[in-house]
């Protein structure tokens, strides 16, 4: 390696180290600007991905129908495919109506949003939604569905925000167990590894009477990000550890089918 190359290498390392010296706020600001620039590409990607996904679902259903009805005529197949298509539309209609109902009866001021994409990294559970500070979304705002808590916003760009999902180990929520005085901290696991991850509720009393099937809600501690009473999950298992008790929860929200969410802008 020549001397010039060594100088260039040192310069490249110096540039990288200079970036490392930036404050967290500055780094988040840079990320927000990058998201602003990337929003059109992400929205286009989301639209294409959605179309491919629907196409795949349609093809799979047709394949299944074909296997079941191998002897039926082509016209019969066509009719079944048409019925399937209208069924999908009905499902979508039902889902959107349920979301609308929830917004009307919720005590919170909710902003509907759609999941654009999920984080491709292995170590963090985040998603991007199509709302940003242009619609008064701010960092650290709760995100939920009619079923329960989804997470909270972190970096916010103009028309896009990153949501730290409840399934991330860093998303810690004060929680209480229904029908008891037990309180603890819910968080995700470090690595989920599959599409239906579990949550853990730590710092419970070792002798707590917690049974599978009990519901867990946000505790709404003073000054916390999350209001009280939002469903988090259901207890699957309770185990005692050396110093505390730990419950394994099945999330209230199906994170593998997350599409429409609400950002909590405030109370009504």
């Amino acid at each position, binding site marked *: 390696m020549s001397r010039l190359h060594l100088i260039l290498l040192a310069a490249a390392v110096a540039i990288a180290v200079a970036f490392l010296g930036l404050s967290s706020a500055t780094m988040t600001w840079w*990320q927000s600007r990058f998201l602003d620039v990337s929003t059109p590409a992400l929205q286009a990607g989301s639209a294409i991905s959605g179309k491919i996904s629907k196409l795949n679902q349609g093809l799979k259903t047709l394949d299944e129908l074909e296997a079941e009805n191998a002897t039926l005529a082509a016209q019969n197949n066509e009719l079944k495919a048409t019925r399937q298509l209208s069924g999908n539309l009905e499902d979508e209609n039902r889902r959107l109506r349920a979301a609308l109902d929830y917004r009307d009866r919720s005590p919170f001021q909710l902003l509907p949003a759609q999941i654009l994409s999920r984080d491709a990294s292995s170590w963090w559970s985040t998603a991007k939604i199509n709302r940003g500070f242009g619609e008064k979304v701010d960092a650290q705002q709760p995100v939920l569905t009619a079923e329960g808590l989804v997470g909270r916003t972190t970096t916010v760009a103009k028309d896009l925000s990153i949501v730290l999902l409840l399934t991330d180990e860093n998303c810690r929520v004060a929680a209480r167990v229904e029908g008891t005085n037990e309180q603890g901290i819910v968080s995700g696991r470090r690595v989920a*590894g*599959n599409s239906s991850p579990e949550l853990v509720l730590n710092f419970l009393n070792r002798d707590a009477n917690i049974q599978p099937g009990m519901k867990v809600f946000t505790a709404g501690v003073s000054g916390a990000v999350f209001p009280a009473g939002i469903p988090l999950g259901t207890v699957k298992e309770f185990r005692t550890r050396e110093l505390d008790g730990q419950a394994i929860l099945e999330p209230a929200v199906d994170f593998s089918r997350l599409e429409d969410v609400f950002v909590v802008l405030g109370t009504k």
Partner: protein
Amino acid sequence: MIRALILAVLIYLALIAQEFLPAVPLLGGSHVLVVPLLFVYAALWLPFPGILGFALYTGLLSDLTFLHATGDQVEIGLGWSMLFYVFLGTALRLLQPLAPGGRWEIHCLASGLATSLLLLVQYLMVCLRRESFLLDGTILWQVFGPGLAALMLAPPAYFFLRLFPGRPWSQPDRPGLTS
């Protein structure tokens, strides 16, 4: 030059596209990462200043995409991926004389190793930040699964990228020596 520009655009597009690729159940639910294999191709093909430029560009975009802010803290700061790609590019530069312009086998192996190494470094930093170290089958899959995916994707990517015009920097302008 044209191929370098195409690579730069492809790296940005790959970062966006990665977000829409579903996790692969066969690989323990791990994600497919395309950016490291594109960088490896660039590093086997460009002159050293170009490699460093690409390393800073790829690292900056990767960091901006994956920056994980939790409250007032950032888990892996802006600049770590830049450092990783700078050192990876420097190491790959040493392979250039072995195969001018790169060979698909070298690209394939280096892509798999680079992808898993990137994830391993990220994971160690996450553990350091969270002050606890866990190791189980799921985590191993998350480290080595994407590396396996890169091994499989690298050959088609290599031959696809060779379709674009451009001569590798280290390849002599003489007939009979092209790989």
